[in-house]
């Protein structure tokens, strides 16, 4: 049963610290998405990649967030420095061109 995996599942950190979230897409999927979910804003698209190339990161605060795909099996989302307003659940999803997206279990981030 192929699934998107995300690590860590939970992260508590202090303001100003760097946070790195990792995602392993479903094998063979060439499109990877990062979303953020909060009570205030709901589910928001931050960025997405196709064949490891960034296609759209317009939803991502550029000054502190960065997203990369070092290889086809790993996507990372970094926040540096982190702020309390970054507290949210971050989801990674993967899919194929013209197919639906499959979500991972999420990373629950709390910045104190």
């Amino acid at each position, binding site marked *: 049963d192929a699934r998107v995996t995300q690590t860590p599942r939970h992260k508590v950190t202090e303001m100003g610290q760097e946070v790195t979230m990792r995602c392993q897409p479903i094998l063979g999927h060439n*499109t990877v998405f990062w979303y953020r979910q909060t009570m205030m804003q709901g589910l928001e698209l931050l960025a997405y990649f196709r064949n490891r190339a960034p296609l759209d990161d317009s939803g991502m605060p550029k000054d502190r967030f960065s997203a990369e795909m070092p290889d086809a099996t790993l996507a990372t989302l970094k926040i540096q420095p982190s702020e309390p307003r970054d507290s949210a659940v971050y*989801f990674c999803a993967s899919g194929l*061109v013209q197919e639906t997206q499959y979500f991972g279990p999420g990373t629950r981030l709390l910045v104190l």
Partner: protein
Amino acid sequence: GESVGLHLPTLSVQEGDNSIINCAYSNSASDYFIWYKQESGKGPQFIIDIRSNMDKRQGQRVTVLLNKTVKHLSLQIAATQPGDSAVYFCAENKGMDVFWGRVSYGKLTFGQGTILTVHP
């Protein structure tokens, strides 16, 4: 204290009843729609999708209806079960990108969600 955040619509039904969850989408140019189910502590799970050249699509116990005239999408769940209790999101494709000559429906925008509670 006063709570802040999204006030999600709620729907409460009895086990065995049929449920109808509604969604109004915003972009008349959107041509691909998906319903997701999200249980507490989990990521959204795909339920069913529909393209704009269709009005209706059926799955196992679920039916999606699309009314493009009024930009309305609905999800019908037959014989609702307690395990169906979750938040349900509709999503629309608001921006397409063309990849290798094929239109891709990857970029989705999600609605705020509806909380479905099924009572035994």
